[in-house]
């Protein structure tokens, strides 16, 4: 009797465990600031977010922006990738620009000089001036006081038995577009090191 019960109980427990394992969620929402456990060796979501936050906040807090002639303006020119791995440059640039707009409303005017956006702006201005579309406000295109540029570099090493390491440095500088003076700079760096598991060698 006891043996029978324990057999039934064991079967029930096994089936429940199998059922639970089968029902475990394979996809779930995770915090983009936390390591996702998937592994990797490049620029991760937490790097992009931390970098965008750090750079925008530090620039707005530390850069000696000249506000004597009104709110200064800047545009983000992009990232120059000098690394040994491709990156999604547009994502990094867009996140920094978004945060500058969000946090720097009174400190700085952020211009969008993306080629496609500029093309849209010019086409709309032309249409307004030619009377093709209605437009009450006609303004001059804003010139920029500063430009924010960035560079990415890596030191990549590959060794025996699948050993590898990659040191990443993202450097950002703000340059005065009248004097060429570099008035602010900051960097964000991180390093990956590891080796390939035996099953991949």
């Amino acid at each position, binding site marked *: 009797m006891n*043996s029978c019960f324990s*057999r039934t109980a064991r079967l029930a427990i096994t089936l429940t465990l199998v059922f639970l394992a089968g029902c475990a969620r394979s996809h779930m929402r995770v915090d983009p600031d936390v390591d996702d456990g*998937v*592994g*990797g*060796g*490049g620029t991760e979501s937490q790097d992009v977010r931390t970098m965008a936050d750090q750079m925008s906040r530090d620039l707005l807090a530390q850069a000696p922006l000249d506000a004597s002639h009104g709110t200064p303006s800047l545009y983000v020119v992009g*990232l*120059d*990738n*000098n*690394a*040994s*791995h*491709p*990156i*999604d*440059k547009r994502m990094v640039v867009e996140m920094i620009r978004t945060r500058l707009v969000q946090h720097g409303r009174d400190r700085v005017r952020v211009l969008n000089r993306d080629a496609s956006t500029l093309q849209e702006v010019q086409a709309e201005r032309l249409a307004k001036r030619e009377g093709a579309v209605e437009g009450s406000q006609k303004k001059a295109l804003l010139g920029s006081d500063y430009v924010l540029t960035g560079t*990415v570099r890596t030191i*990549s090493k*590959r*060794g*025996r*038995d*699948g050993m590898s390491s990659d040191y990443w440095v993202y450097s950002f500088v703000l340059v005065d577009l009248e004097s060429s003076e570099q008035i602010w700079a900051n960097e964000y760096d991180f390093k990956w090191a*590891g*080796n*390939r*598991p*035996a*099953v*991949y*060698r």
Partner: protein
Amino acid sequence: MSPSPRTLRRRTRRPCTRQLASRVALWATVLGGAACTAWVPPPVEPYWQGRLDVAEELFRERLDSSDGDWVLMANELATTLDAKGDVDGAWRLFYDAGRAMETWDASFGERVGTVVGREDTREYRGEPYERALNSIYTGILAFERGEPDNARASFKEAMLRDAEQSEEEFGSDFAPSFYLAAWASRDNGQASEARSFLQEARQARQGAVAHGARGKSDPLAFRNFEASNLLVLASVGRGPWKVARRDRPDMVVMASPTQRVRAARVFVDGVLRGTTEVIGDVDFQANTRGGRWLDGIREGKAVFKEVSGTAGTVLLLEGIDRDDKGMMLAGAIALLGSLFISVDPDLRCWRTLPDTLQAIALDVTPGEHRVFVEFIATDGRVDSQYSREYRITVPARDAPRLHTTILHARSVPAPTPHRYPPTGGSP
């Protein structure tokens, strides 16, 4: 005398232990069986027949339900999108697949599954030549997206990936990585770096040809680099695939298909400007490590099986000779272990790769041009179903830095084949 209750419990437990053992064996068989299903890829013929919409649908469907072959399917889908002219879509997929190829972490289950079950149950990360070509195509598309710096980064990544070897360290010998990095560096305004990469491309090409790679050791595209502002690249032919060796089923060898085309002929505004030459032999890259020809790719597990089998036999015989039960047991366990290890080879490979990467470097006047690319079949005739026309705008020469144009054609039948010969054209 009736048995004590303790003896009864022990007696009733014995069958339970046996049952438990049989249950464990049953579960192991079920799990082992689940891991023994061979990899069945979606058909690749629609891609090679130029039915790119069908190929896209097949690869996309498989990508959504991929099981260990996401990287492979992403690369095959990206190749298809590239052939369709979807530059951004193809770049995104190549880029994502490239990042996944860098993720070496394997879960405990994956490691156990790889040892107990088939080799092809692990997440696919690619052979060095496939990993290098992922970077090269990511770079070519980055160039087309107007990101020559990202392109250069991709070509540098290709050099690193090509140099990844498990047993010894070799330098990269895949010339296209260096040659394309030279173009990207020059476009980034770094002339001296470009010259340095070109020199490395020459050395890599000479080394590869010396070891048996097809094509010239100093192709015209290398010699014309300084005076050119248009690079026409062609992914020519159908790349190799993996098969198990007949005499050694645990060994994987590369098989080369019969080729339909061998080179591309390039016309600019109707004028024949030349024929592409091999700058990278994919078949050679797949079959060699640092210039050394491989008998076959042998996975670590096959080596383990052989070693543990031999060690088991030696221990068992030695144990019998010495009458050492411990040694006999160890030998028996090792021998038994080797019998249960599956050594089915991993035949997964990137099936939409070309046979060769070819190039022609041209000097064209700034402005708009019509570039016509036609592929020459192996019998010397032009196979018109592969021909296609591109419209390009070459930047002015007095620009602050030399902006070059890279055009990439794949030898798959064009969706709307151009069947007319351009002016001044082909026979």
